[in-house]
Structures are given as C-alpha cells and as structure tokens.
C-alpha cells in the first residue's frame, strides 16, 4: 500500500526537526558554557578552564556549521512540504523569521570572530566578542519558538478564513503561548546541553581520567543543567496547565482523558483506549487537581470534538508526555545529589554511582527533549494552525516526497554519525596530544600562512 504524501511530509518534517532541535539546543547553550569557562580562565588565571573554553569553542564551530545546514533545510521545507501553509500564513508569522534572520546572522558573524580570534584579540576583547553569540542565541530561540507558539495559539490576523488581508505583527509575536513555550524551550536547551556535555566528561572520569580538565569539564555544564532543571519543572508545569486551558484537546490526548468530567484520574503509563486507560497506574483526582488545584476541576475530554479533530497516536503522545516529566523528575534528584554534595564538601559527589548517573543524564535529557517536541507537535494534529488550518490542507501537491524523505533519512544518519565521529576524534586528539599539539589560548601569533607565502611545495 502506498502511503500518502501527507504521511511522507509529516515524517520528513518530524525527522528533520527532531534532528535540528538537538543541534539548535547546542547552538543556544554551548556558547554560554564556553564563555563561563573562558571567564573563569581569565578571572582566576585558570589555564585548564581556558583550555576547556577553547575546546568547546571548536565544538561550537562544528555543531553550529551543521546546525546552520539543517536549519537551512527547514526553511526550504516550509515551501517544499507545506507550501499552502506558508502561502497563506507566511505573511503572518514570517516577520518572526526575519527577526530570527538578524539574530542568526549576528550569531554566525560573532562565532566566526570568536573562534578565529583566539590568538589574535586581547583576552578580554576576545571574551566580549563571544557575548553576542549567547545573546543572539537566546533571541533566535525566542523568534523561532514564537512561531511555533503562534501555530498553537494563532491570533493577530484577519479574516480567519481565506486569504489574510490584515496583520497585527505585535499580536502575532506576543501570542498567548509565548510566555510558557519560549522559556520552556530555552531552558530545555540549557538543560540538554549541560547534561550532554557533563555526561561526556563523566564517561571519561569513569574510565579513569580524573584530571582537573575532566573535573572542570563535568562541573561547569552540570551546574548549569542542575540549576535549569528545577526551574524547567516549574515552567513545564505552568505550560501544561496553560495548555489545558488554551488547547484542551492536546491536553486531553497527553493525559488520555476520554470524557469531559471532574475528579479526573491521573494515569502514569498505560494504553489509551476509547474506554479509558488500560494497564496504567492511576491516581484518582490528581489530573483535575493538577489542572485547577482542586479535584473538582473539570477537565475537557477528547469526546468534546469529533474523531477527525483528535490527535493521532494517543498512546504514544501519552507516553511521550510521561517520559518527559519522568526524566525531568529524575534529573531533579541528580541536581539534589550534586547540591547536597556541594553543600557538604564543596565538591561534587565522588562516588562512581554519581558519575554513572551523570553519564546517563545526557542521553536521558535528549530523550526528554524529543518527547516534549512530540507532545507539542503531534498533540496539535490534525491542525497545522490550531483550529484554523488542517495539516492535510497545508501539504504540497508535488509528488515524490517519499523519495526525498528516504534521501533525507540516509543523509542525516550519515551526517549525525560523522558529527559524532568527528567530535569524538577531536576529543581523542586533545587527550592524546603531546604538549606541542595543544593549542595555547592567546599564544603568540603564528604569523602569516607561511608555507603559502614561501611556495616551497612542488
């Protein structure tokens, strides 16, 4: 059976976005880690911290370059996959991408200045050249996520059917979903990057590399992630409550609420069926309580809309939501562990179990990130613009999407593999490098490209 263009387009979009979101998170938060290390290095004459900053800046360069590419693909996909969506609403949400363009442009420029300026700018000038990278990363994240927020809570245009003839850009930019969706994503970026980088150094320490570089390389990102995690939990909780109000059907699908009622049971896990959740752990009344601080709060169920208007893959959505919340909860325990260790001994816990937990936290946080993305995207279906335009009406009429999806799949798998191999090779090189091979930050100018000028080679 040939599957539809819509399925192919949705698969391709989901895959490319799910890939890009990891690189984008690194692009937003890794420069901040790099600058923290850089600051520490300059402030406390800490050569190890400077070395970390320099290494991370090279990782920033590689991930940013790949992220720029996957981001360009996404901008193409707005037209290649969803031309009717962009054709109708591009004039509404497009300004946000124009703003994002400025941030992205500045980010690219200052990353170039920072990376290539290690040996050529004075130390503090060099540090300050990295600050715009962090700021523009935040600005870019705001702009892009605000577009997604607008798709969840469309407003600021008229008429609501047919061709748009008037737009209120400020209402579009500051739509009702921005206050919870944007901070949620930015915190996720810091959380994921922090745990991911820390996990790499944790693995190194588990393998016996307990030098100061590894300890600093674990501590800086882990501290950032552990500060972000509890805040993220609170922001996520607020977001869920707002979704229950703004997009009740998405919320109902997340929690498998079939019929509108009060005293709704909160289920952990289980299978979603039309007659309720099977095999899940149920806590009576908790869902209502979480939505409105009282078990008598009414929660809207999926039955309030026709079957055509309900999100697909209900069980997967429910599991994605539970996995995200579950992982975040466990990561809070890790943060507590670090906090207690720091409070008692001014150091992170030295036990192997702590290192093991940190080593797993990186992958776990990426899983949580993807789950969150599934919740917000699949949960909005069948709408591309909530309650306004169906995804099936947005898709291209062009044929052959399965071919491009297959090509993209193969290409991105190769890209991801190469990226990981490259980053691993870089780290191995740093580790094995003899003294000569280690670049010294702010070392003397090596002069013009010597062997080009002399023309010695044949």
């Amino acid at each position, binding site marked *: 059976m040939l599957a539809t263009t819509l399925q192919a387009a949705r698969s391709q979009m989901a895959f490319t976005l799910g890939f890009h979101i990891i690189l984008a998170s690194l692009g937003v938060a890794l420069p901040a880690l790099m600058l923290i290390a850089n600051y520490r290095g300059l402030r406390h004459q800490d050569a190890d911290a400077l070395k970390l900053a320099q290494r991370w800046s090279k990782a920033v360069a*590689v991930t940013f370059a790949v992220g720029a590419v996957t981001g360009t693909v996404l901008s*193409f996909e707005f037209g*290649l996959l969803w031309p009717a969506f962009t054709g109708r609403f*591009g004039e509404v949400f497009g300004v946000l991408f124009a703003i994002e363009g400025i941030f992205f442009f500045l980010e690219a420029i200052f990353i170039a200045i920072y990376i*290539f300026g290690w040996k*050529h700018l004075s130390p503090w000038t060099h540090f300050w050249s990295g600050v715009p990278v962090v700021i523009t990363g935040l600005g870019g994240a705001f702009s892009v996520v605000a577009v997604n927020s607008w798709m969840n809570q469309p407003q600021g245009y008229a008429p609501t059917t047919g061709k*748009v003839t008037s737009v209120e850009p400020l209402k579009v930019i500051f739509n009702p979903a921005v206050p919870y969706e944007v901070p949620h994503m930015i915190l996720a970026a810091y959380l994921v990057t922090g745990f991911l980088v820390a996990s790499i150094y944790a693995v190194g320490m588990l393998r016996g590399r307990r030098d100061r570089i590894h300890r600093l390389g674990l501590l800086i990102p882990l501290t950032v992630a552990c500060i972000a995690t509890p805040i993220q939990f609170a922001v996520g909780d607020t977001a869920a409550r707002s979704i229950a109000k703004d997009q009740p059907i998405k919320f109902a699908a997340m929690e498998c609420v079939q019929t509108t009622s009060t005293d709704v049971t909160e289920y952990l896990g289980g299978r979603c069926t039309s007659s309720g959740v099977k095999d899940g752990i149920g806590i009576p009344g908790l869902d209502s309580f979480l939505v409105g601080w009282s078990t008598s709060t009414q929660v809207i169920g999926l039955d309030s809309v026709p079957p055509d208007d309900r999100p697909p893959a209900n069980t997967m959505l429910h599991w994605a939501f539970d996995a995200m919340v579950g992982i975040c909860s466990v990561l809070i325990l890790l943060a507590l562990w670090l906090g207690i260790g720091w409070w008692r001994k001014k150091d992170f816990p030295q036990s192997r179990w702590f290192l093991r937990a940190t080593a797993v936290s990186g992958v776990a946080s990426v899983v949580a990130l993807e789950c969150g993305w599934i919740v917000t995207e699949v949960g909005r279906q069948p709408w591309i613009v909530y309650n306004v335009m169906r995804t099936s009406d947005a898709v291209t009429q062009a044929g052959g999407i399965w071919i491009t999806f297959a090509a993209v799949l193969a290409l991105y798998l190769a890209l991801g593999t190469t990226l990981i191999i490259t980053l691993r*090779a*870089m780290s191995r090189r740093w580790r094995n490098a003899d003294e000569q091979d280690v670049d010294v930050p702010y070392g003397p100018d090596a002069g013009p*490209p010597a062997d080009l000028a002399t023309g010695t080679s044949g």
Partner: protein
Amino acid sequence: MTSANAVAVVLWIGATMYAVFAGADFGAGLWSLLAGGNERGRRPRELIDWAIGPVWEANHVWLIFAIVVLWTGFPSAFEAVFSTLFIPLSLAALGIVLRGSGFAFHHVARRARGRSLAELIFGLSSVLTPFFMGTVVGAIAGGRVPVGNAAGDPVTSWLNPLSLVIGALFVATGTYLSAVFLVSDARRARAPDLERYFGTRALVSAIVTGALAAAGLVVLRSDARFVFDGLKGDALPLVILSIVCGSAVLVLLRRNARRGARVLAAGAVGCVIWAWGVAQHPYLLPQKLTIAAAAAPSATLTSLLVVFGVAVLVVLPSLGLLFTLVQRNLVRETSRPTEQRRDKPHADRLRR
C-alpha cells in the same frame, strides 16, 4: 515607491548578496575540485580554505534571508515557486547539506582519506547547488511557474534550454567571481605563484561566463520574450554597465592591477541580477503574478522594512568588523598550515 516595491528591492538585495558572496564560495568549491590530485592540488586548496574559512558561514545566511523575505513579503509567490519547482529546489537543498557538512568536517578531519572525501563532497555539491538554483531562476524568468500549490509542470518547468543555460551560467559566474577574489587572497597571502594560477583561471572563466550570458540572451529571446524585451528596454543601462564592468576586470587582470578587480567583478554580477529584476518588473513571476498582487498586508511589509533597517544598522557593521579583521589577518585560522606540517609524522605513524 510602494512598500511592496520596497520589499521587492530588499529581496533583490538579499539575492544579490547571496549571488556574489555565496556564489564566490561555490566557485571556490569548484576550483578546489579542479585543483587536481592530493599533492598537486594542495596549495590552491590551502589558499581556498584559508580565504573562505572565516567568512563562509556568514555568506550563506543571505540565502535564508532571501527565502524568509520571499515567504513573508510575497507568500503566494513562495508557495508557487517551492511547490512547482520541488525537484530542483530539493536537489539544491541536498547540495547545501552536503556542502555545508563537507566543509564543516574537512576542517577537522585529520586523516587523509576522510579529508579528501570531505573535499570531494564539498566540491561536487558546490557545483550542484548553484546549478539547480539557476534552473529555478530560469523557470521563473521563462514564465513556467503558475500561481498555486504545485500548479506548474514538475519537470519541464525547470528542465528546458533556458533553465539549463541559466544553471550553467550560475556555476560559471561563481567560478569567475571566486577566481577574481582568490587572486587578491593569494596576494594577501604573498603567494605569487597562486596569484598567477588564479589569474589565468579568472580570465578563462570570465570568457566562459560571458559566452554563457550571451547564449542565455539568445535563449531568452525565443523563450522568455517578456524578460528579453525588458532587458532591451528599461534594463538596458544595467546590461551595458555589467558588460563594461566585466570588460574592465579583464583589463585589470591582464595588467596585474592591484585594486578594483574584485569590486568590478561583483558589480558585473550584481548588475545582471538587477537587470533581470528591472526587466521583469512589475512581475515577480513574469506574466503570472505581479509584485502588487503577491504582496503581503501593509503591516507585514512595514515590519519587514523595519527589520531590514535594523539589520542594516546592526548586521552590516558586524559584518564589516568580521571582514576587516579577516583582511587584516587579525582573525584567521593560523594553525592550519603549520598544523599540517606537524601532522605528517602522526599520519605516517597511523599508516604504519
């Protein structure tokens, strides 16, 4: 000027910047591909690397800029172009992915085999991307992109003589620009042999580009009469200016002049792009969709112009800073040539 026309000008500025800067990058990719075997092509490739390393990322952003301005300012044109021309634009995107990642990785790949594979991918995709972009422009100029979701022919819209010639012209233009730019870069790197090397290539590619442009005019005359008439009419001064600039570059190159070649070469290319825009005015998609009919509501257009104004105030100085630092050798990847030498014993060890 109406705000729709103003946004069209902004779109054309983005397209011009992309054509000139990213075009030169694409061309550099082709030169790196043509430079020959590992040892023979090493020095030209090193120069290419050294010259475009710090700036390539920023150059490429112009594409995203132009795409976003198109879908925000003229969404129906964006819909028509990206749905009808699904195939060449998918292939161009493929080229962009390969090229970007090839470049990102070949910088860090140490082993010779990985490095030359990355370089090969970088080179090939540097040809594919501008070629398919060119076929897209050919399809638009030829009036083969009707309004609507995939309303045009998915194949013949871009697989026709006009599109193919313009595709080839795009590739040639990039090689021409980059050869001219690399002559200056070789001078900056004090490598007279490479200066001669790229000087010769600049001359050859200038002649090829000129010939292709002339061929393009012939095809335009029979296939895209509206645009051809525009080039003969309102856009004629720009066409003449482009020819003058292009010829002046040839003269400067022959005389080994130190200044002016780069600006004039970029000017020659820019004039062609603006000539195309003027020639098809008031249409965005010739004889299918006018700028006014495609334009977004006025609040959107105003916001776009404001954002563009901010971009000019903020991005241009930053970009200027980057280029200045690069030109003064303050920022660049100094480690590369020296690192390579240091690297050799290591590579030998690996082989053993």
